[in-house]
């Protein structure tokens, strides 16, 4: 900036600057006091594990710790690339992620437009309350409901199938149906809550726009298409970027609670594989390596989506 010009005055100026900064820091001393525990928490519980990523390049043993375990370079990554179970989990994660983007993402948008157009305020109120509720239930509870529902002997689905004379297979949660089950049950649980951000943005659209369009002879569909949807564009873009960054790991709780040994072929994802590696085999270093690999891909996806969105719609999260 203007450093070259101000060269002669620099020492005095920087002194004055430092004094001003010092005054500001003093003025804000209580705020630093407030931030201290927060920063400490972030350093220990967020950045601590990031430092622990080093274990991915070590032969970590609990007794030696991060500081004294021997380094083995990229050995765990070589194991990873040759591990068919890992690639199975990776492929499943990618396929499930694609399903989520295609089938789950648009539902809250469509639902929120329909609910916004509702002409009966009590129907709107009741359904909104009902639709938000499952978001607050744990996946343990929802999976319990699903397991009961799909029980081949006593569940409702089996009862209905029997009513129509259809034969009920001994298993309803199978490798073939597992991914569809994930998509459907996640829509059941989260689509309602997903609407809330779109509904909020719709309520902030200037009502004059709709009136002007109405005067110009636009019908309801046209008003939705030309006013409501464009108003949602930036929110949709941001939601899409966030989804891209989390889609490979999202749904751990769901998959973990719905999984059973029979559906691993289509239903084992990276995070559940990491969990088993840590708990069953105590392979910390290998689990770290898989986790790191996954994190890097997720971050890359996020950056990619952010860049694309910046190019296409001028919308980005930073």
């Amino acid at each position, binding site marked *: 900036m203007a450093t070259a010009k101000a060269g002669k005055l620099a020492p005095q100026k920087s002194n004055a600057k430092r004094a001003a900064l010092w005054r500001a820091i003093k003025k804000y001393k209580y*705020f630093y006091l*407030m931030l201290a525990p927060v920063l400490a928490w972030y350093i220990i519980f967020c950045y601590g594990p990031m430092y*622990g990523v080093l274990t991915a390049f070590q032969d970590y043993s609990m007794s030696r710790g991060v500081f004294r375990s021997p380094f083995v370079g990229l050995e765990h990554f070589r194991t990873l690339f040759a591990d068919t179970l890992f690639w199975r989990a990776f492929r499943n994660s990618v396929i499930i992620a694609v399903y989520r983007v295609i089938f789950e993402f648009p539902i809250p948008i469509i639902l929120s437009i329909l609910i916004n157009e509702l002409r009966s305020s009590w129907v709107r109120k009741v359904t909104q309350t009902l639709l938000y509720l499952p978001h607050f239930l744990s996946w343990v509870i929802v999976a319990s409901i699903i397991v009961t529902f799909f029980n081949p002997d006593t569940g409702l689905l089996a009862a209905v199938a029997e009513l129509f004379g259809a034969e009920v297979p001994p298993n309803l949660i199978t490798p073939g149906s597992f991914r569809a089950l994930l998509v459907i049950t996640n829509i059941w649980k989260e689509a309602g809550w997903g609407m809330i951000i779109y509904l909020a943005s719709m309520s902030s659209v200037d009502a004059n726009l709709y009136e002007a369009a109405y005067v110009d002879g636009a019908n309801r569909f046209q008003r939705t298409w030309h006013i409501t949807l464009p108003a949602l564009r930036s929110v949709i873009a941001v939601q899409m970027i966030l989804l891209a960054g989390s889609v490979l790991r999202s749904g751990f709780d769901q998959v973990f609670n719905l999984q059973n040994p029979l559906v691993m072929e289509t239903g084992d994802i990276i995070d559940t594989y990491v969990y088993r590696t840590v708990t069953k085999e105590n392979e910390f270093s290998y689990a770290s390596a898989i*986790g790191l690999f996954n994190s890097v891909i997720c971050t890359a996806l996020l950056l990619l989506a952010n860049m694309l969105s910046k190019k296409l719609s001028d919308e980005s999260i930073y």
Partner: protein
Amino acid sequence: MVIKSKFNAFDVFNIIFTILVGLVIFIPMWYIFVISTSTYAAYIRDPFHLIPTSFTLQEYARAVLKTKEMLTALWASVRITVTGTVISMMLTILGGYALSKDGLPGRKILFRIFIFTMFFGGGLAPTYILITKLHMTNTIWALTIPGAISTYNMILMKNFFTSIPSSLEEAAKIDGYNDLQILFRIVLPLSKPVLAAISLFYAVGYWNDYFGALLYSSSQDLMPFQIYLRNLIIVNSAAMRAGVQTGPSAQEQFKMAVIIIGIIPVAVIYPFVQKYFTQGIVLGAVKE
């Protein structure tokens, strides 16, 4: 001017469709509820369990009065939820308030340090190692502190604090309040809506958590309700499907009663806080 248009076929379709969507959400929960209140005879008679033909609370009574395991689990969940929510709210309020001060030197860097953790984390294995090394396993702290701050909630909080007119705080300063007193005596009483919404988000998170306990706790008195339910229904059913019979399974109505007991606390508190959700989310959409 108000847009006048007739109540047309689309409106009728829309209302019917929305009601159907509502039913799809409602029926699975209703189904569980009906089973949980059926007598054994009624349960055997009707395979659909959609229209109640009997009503009894005996399974609830059995669960609450006679099942010590479940009571211990509920009590553990209550302790974890209360402790965790208090810790989370303290940290989130302090962090959110400090970050809401534009003039704070270093604010931008701190903000970036916090935000970065939303997109990149160490992963399960390093976190597990850390918690073990800190000797937190089998204490309530392992189930509360590692997940104490949600950066997203802290940003919501910060955005709300930013929206409070600074003239109020300046006036308090003239009265001789320091910044901590201003926060607790002036700012927080004005922030009830956002405090209610965020406390609910945290409390529900702790109430629903099972994974922390699965990893870090092996002692019976720290087994939360979600683990009890998971073992009762999910683990049992997965084992049965794989052909492994794990002892006599509990009666269906009893299991369903336990599910409903898990839904009740959430369903009871949530309507009171619902009106604050939208406000919270709108604040969250304001970008830094």
